[in-house]
């Protein structure tokens, strides 16, 4: 109990003093995860919608695989991306290992199935609703996907925010591919792991509280900007 209190105090101290290291790693956390969420949403949302609209032979199998991919252990993703990006791996020439780009790539792999799967769920419901109209209007597949994504944008925002939640708290993959380099690839979660390793529980916990606060702030901000709660009649 005392440790937790100390963690809270530490969090307060870090925030009040605008600790420069804290600000730097918080910004990096946001940069990495927001980039990954953006890319994953651009990939996952159209894919989820496409999966809802298109009937093909192995559709069920594809959905099952997608749902299974949601459970990918980040450490495994990290290891595979690491081996791909390593100088002796297939994409080694790009020199991306231990850079924020590598962290984004790993998170995109982790987040895309999650976002696609939630998007598919939402799009499937909407497709059941819209099916007759869109078929009757002789729409192309692309027009169908566009209508579903546009009209379902609030539900899809939830998918992206779920991705953000998973990404911002993720440590296994980005630790491996980012290397937790001070001033280069250290983010909130890897810093927490580091401080825990040193036995400095108060600082680790303080960073943890900052992380939670940041996640809440981002969710809140996005809800305000999109006014989901105000105009949420449907």
């Amino acid at each position, binding site marked *: 109990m005392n440790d937790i209190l100390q963690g809270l105090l530490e969090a307060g101290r870090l925030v009040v003093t605008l600790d420069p290291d804290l600000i730097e790693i918080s910004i990096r956390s946001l940069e990495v995860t927001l980039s990954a969420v953006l890319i994953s949403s651009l990939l996952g949302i159209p894919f989820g919608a496409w999966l809802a609209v298109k009937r093909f032979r192995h559709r069920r199998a594809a959905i099952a695989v997608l749902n299974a991919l949601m459970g990918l252990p980040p450490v495994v993703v990290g290891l595979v991306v690491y081996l791909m990006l390593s100088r002796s791996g297939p994409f080694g020439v790009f020199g991306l290992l231990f850079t924020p780009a590598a962290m984004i790539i790993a998170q995109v792999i982790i987040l895309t199935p999650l976002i696609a799967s939630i998007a598919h769920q939402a799009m499937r419901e*909407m497709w059941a*609703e*819209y099916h*007759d*109209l869109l*078929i*009757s*209007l*002789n*729409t192309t597949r692309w*027009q169908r996907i566009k*209508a579903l994504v*546009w*009209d*379902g944008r609030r539900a899809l925002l939830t998918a992206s925010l779920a991705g953000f939640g998973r990404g911002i708290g993720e440590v296994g993959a980005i630790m491996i591919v980012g290397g937790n380099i001070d001033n280069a690839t250290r983010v909130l979660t890897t810093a927490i792991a580091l401080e825990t390793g040193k036995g400095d529980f108060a600082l680790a916990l303080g960073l943890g509280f900052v992380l939670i606060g940041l996640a809440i702030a981002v969710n809140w901000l996005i809800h305000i900007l999109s006014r989901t709660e105000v105009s949420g*009649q*449907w």
Partner: protein
Amino acid sequence: MVTQTILPLRLRDARVRKNGRVIVGPVDYELPADGFTIVIGPNGAGKTTLLRMMHGMERLASGAVEWQVAEKRARERQAFVFQIPVMMRRNVLENVAYPMQLHGSSRKQARAEAARWLELIGLAEAAERPAPVLSGGERQKLALARALIRKPEILFLDEPCASLDGRAMREIEAVLQSAHSEGTRIVMSTHDMGQARRLASDVLFVHRGRIHEDGPAARFFEHPQTPEARAFLQGDIVE
């Protein structure tokens, strides 16, 4: 603009099967190029399925649905108002504008045209309301405006007045009659015999998945040819 009419529509030995059971057909029928056709028949007779089949929305177990032009082009010239209209999750104006935007109209053009239709149909005041909050009657009006905005050559309607009060019903009927007088072919199902008598130029009586009897409205209502049609008109239970 209409280079070639898509009518008449010809159904040849058309059959729709669901769960291994033929629910409509076989139907052999030619829908004439002109007229206001009313489809009647008991619940579960197959009216909805027949209309959807004509519109090309049911997979045929046999036979064919033939228009005078290729199926894809024919579909562009048709519109359908469903028994339960789909309310897209956007406002009323944008719901009505949507079909025009699909066809390359600019957003501005489409919205201007949609506003004109809303005025015509008496929904102008609700233009900025989200469509999913509309009442049953308003929904039917929206669906009708959305179906007519592309000036279809033929319009199918599946019980468009099922849950409407007398006034709303008359308003919709007026819109349909004016569309018909401007050359739109109309095929509509209803359970309201008064409405059928008011609107029909000819009648399709559907019974057990088949077109049991068809003909000009005057003859059908005065001298039904089959015992089933006679019983149905008298309000008896048709077996």
